[in-house]
């Protein structure tokens, strides 16, 4: 019988594929390709984003046709014919009508770096490049000559800036408070009218209160006016006169200058100081100039708050749904169908969630809330409170969007809890819920955290649905502030991912906005990474506590 069997041929050495080397190379190659792409992308973002605020030297260019231009070189490229050309940030928009200009290398006859060349960042109108000549107070010349004017400016500017900031804060915060008080009194009148009818005693009383409030507010307004007038008077007339490269003289009001520096003579320490100061403004201040300059603090706030609220909303829903699906539901075609439906939900385009959020959360839910609770506001100033986009609705929409991720991850985590643990608990006389609550859930927590991490990473980077349900180009009132009731989930907010779109593609000064886009992207990636790191740290702790390795 053996002799009839076909003889198996044995080769003298194993084939290459049997050793598996090609597969190691293939899998390793795929991984390195992925890593290279990711690291390349992140590296590009970090390199571009981190360099935005570094003070660059100011070049004084003299062209062959006799023009003199002061600007910082922001890009250089080789034209198709082989000659080099450079993009120079020329600033001085009000004089030249442009922020940037290209110069071919052949046009430039001389390049120097004068020590007194000054970059001035202004509240409005972009940057100004020039040489300080005089410091003026009205008609009076306080300091004459470049060196003297610059020194005097450096001495006086912080105080002027502080006066401006104080006045600004009064306008924003204290006046805002008064306006809200006035609005509250007006709403009380409307609601009294709604409840007890016009000309009723309650209505009359409310009108009287409104009158009193209006008088008080007016008095307080006058007091504030005095204070801001005093602060502004302190800055009145102070100006720094600068000469451009062509000799034109421009006087810049001291209070409008955010920051000025002479980069050509800054040592490393001074450059670091400017760099840090610009980062500080970027992280801590409100945006200005259509978001293309200044800070992004409200957007940072909005991004973090929205992501955290989303995580808080999605976690309980997702975990409870997955618990029922995995632990209680009878296995069968129905649960299988539900599971498939949930998986498919993850593939629905996010804009669809946005449209749903706008239609259901904002208009239906928010509209009903407005009808029930905020009817006076609706009537008094025709403004919806909850019936429009806001932080709460945006968070809910994103919670819905990330729900499938959490459910799937939680189900995985629940099914990885060993059955022996469940049986051990049942054998001790625990009911199903006690077993889930005390054994299954704690053990599954690290896996649930994984789902939450994925959900946060996905949610924090979404833009499309947010544009429909509450993200705005500019929303300086934060959803948590000092006015009653302190938390305002109905307020519209700013978001870093939307800011990337807005600054990058909607900005009038796109060349100046480009580095900002990289910086904002860098910041967004850093914030998401930070949130994830915190979540991973928590997960690590949970894992050590509940899922220690069993030999």
């Amino acid at each position: 019988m053996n002799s009839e069997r076909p003889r198996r041929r044995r080769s003298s050495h194993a084939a290459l594929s049997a050793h598996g080397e090609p597969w190691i190379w293939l899998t390793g190659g795929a991984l390195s390709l992925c890593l290279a792409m990711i690291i390349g992308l992140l590296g590009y973002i970090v390199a571009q984003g981190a360099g935005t605020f570094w003070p660059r030297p100011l070049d004084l260019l003299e062209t062959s046709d006799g023009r003199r231009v002061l600007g910082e070189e922001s890009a250089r490229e080789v034209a198709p014919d082989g000659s080099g050309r450079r993009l120079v940030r020329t600033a001085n928009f009000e004089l030249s009508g442009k922020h940037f200009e290209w110069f071919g290398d052949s046009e430039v006859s001389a390049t120097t770096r004068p020590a007194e060349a000054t970059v001035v960042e202004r509240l409005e109108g972009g940057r100004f490049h020039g040489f300080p000549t005089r410091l003026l107070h009205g008609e009076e010349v306080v300091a004459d000559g470049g060196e003297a004017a610059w020194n005097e400016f450096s001495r006086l500017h912080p105080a002027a800036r502080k006066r401006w900031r104080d006045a600004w804060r009064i306008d924003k915060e204290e006046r805002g408070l008064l306006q809200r008080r006035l609005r509250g009194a007006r709403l009380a009148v409307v609601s009294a009218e709604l409840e007890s009818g016009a000309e009723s005693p309650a209505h009359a009383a409310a009108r009287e209160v409104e009158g009193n409030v209006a008088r008080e507010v007016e008095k307080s307004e006058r007091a504030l006016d005095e204070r801001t007038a005093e602060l502004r008077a302190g800055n009145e007339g102070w100006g720094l006169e600068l000469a451009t490269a062509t000799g034109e003289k421009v006087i810049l009001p001291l209070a409008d200058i955010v920051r000025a520096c002479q980069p050509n003579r800054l040592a490393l320490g001074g450059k670091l100081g400017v760099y840090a100061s610009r980062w500080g403004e970027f992280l801590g201040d409100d945006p200005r100039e259509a978001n293309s300059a200044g800070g992004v603090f409200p957007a940072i706030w909005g991004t973090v708050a929205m992501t955290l609220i989303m995580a808080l909303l999605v976690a309980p829903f997702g975990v409870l749904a997955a618990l029922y699906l995995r632990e209680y539901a009878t296995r069968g075609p129905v649960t299988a169908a539900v599971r498939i439906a949930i998986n498919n939900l993850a593939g629905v385009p996010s804009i669809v969630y946005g449209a749903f959020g706008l239609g259901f959360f904002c208009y239906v839910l928010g509209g009903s809330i407005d009808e029930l609770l905020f009817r006076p506001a609706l009537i008094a100033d025709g403004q919806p409170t909850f019936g429009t986009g806001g932080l709460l609705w945006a968070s809910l929409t994103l919670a819905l969007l990330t729900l499938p991720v959490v459910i799937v991850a939680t189900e995985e985590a629940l099914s990885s809890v060993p059955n022996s643990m469940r049986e051990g608990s049942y054998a001790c006389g625990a009911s199903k819920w006690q077993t889930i609550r005390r054994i299954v859930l704690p053990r599954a927590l690290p896996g649930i955290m994984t789902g939450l991490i994925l959900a946060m990473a996905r949610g924090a980077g979404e833009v499309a649905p947010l544009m429909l349900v509450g993200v705005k180009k500019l929303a300086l009132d934060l959803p948590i502030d000092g006015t009653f009731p302190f938390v305002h989930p109905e307020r519209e907010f700013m978001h870093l991912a939307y800011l990337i779109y807005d600054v990058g593609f909607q900005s009038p000064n796109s060349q100046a906005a480009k580095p900002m886009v990289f910086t904002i992207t860098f910041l967004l990636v850093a914030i998401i990474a930070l949130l994830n790191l915190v979540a991973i740290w928590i997960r690590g702790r949970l894992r050590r506590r509940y899922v220690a390795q069993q030999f």
Partner: protein
Amino acid sequence: MPTSAETPSSPDRLAVVAGGGQVPAEVHQRVRQDPAVLEIDGFNLWYGTKQALHSISMPIPHGKVTALVGPSGCGKSTLLRSVNRLNDLVPSVRITGDMRLNGDSIYDPRMDVIELRKRMGMVFQRPNPFPMSIYENVVYALRIDGETSRTVLDEVCEKSLRGAALWDEVKDRLSDSALGLSGGQQQRLCIARAIAAEPEVLLLDEPCSALDPIATGKVEDLIQELRGHYSVLIVTHNMQQASRSSDYTAFMYLGRLIEYGPTTDIFTKPVLRETEAYVTGRFG
């Protein structure tokens, strides 16, 4: 195919069973001399259409260690898991017959399964400590019963850990995670957990099969000590273990009870030659 060493004068019972036939169980009269804590009465069990237990009837004596032996797949573990109705969790299981725990019908439809399980303790093949501290593991049964008094819990914890011969090893780290213990310690912790609620019967399902020889020795010593304090029903593969640590031994084969009697009789002068063949290792 099992083969009997003896020349058959009567048909070999195991062969009959393997052929699907029925044989009477050989139950020694002496198993009735102690009062029974658990009475298994004509118990049949099916997984779907496959019958796993065939009319098992046997008393489990009070305060003694009773071992269930038999080759793999003979239904020992199934029988054990039927006692505390853990098989209820398997959707396709169907049973007939009954068991009585101290006179209370276990399969009475009015019986509260959760209350029933609180009257028993069970230890599984693989140590299955819960993902919580050693202390919380031991008092788990009391916690879910709603016991909150710290003094009661402390007392039960110490008593159970001492009972499971683990107290001296863990008394200084009761709040550490139980998952950090060694395998043998974990299994003794599971025994401590099982005896914490003063069970009327303790079910041990091959408690040493996942342990190394030294840990096995410790757990076996522990079973010796439990003897007399608790009524123990233990499933084991290990003949030495059964002969050393049990008072009574039941031999099962393919879902049938073949012979059941005092351990010394089963191992030295069994009534059936089939039993002798199995316990002496000539088959199985």
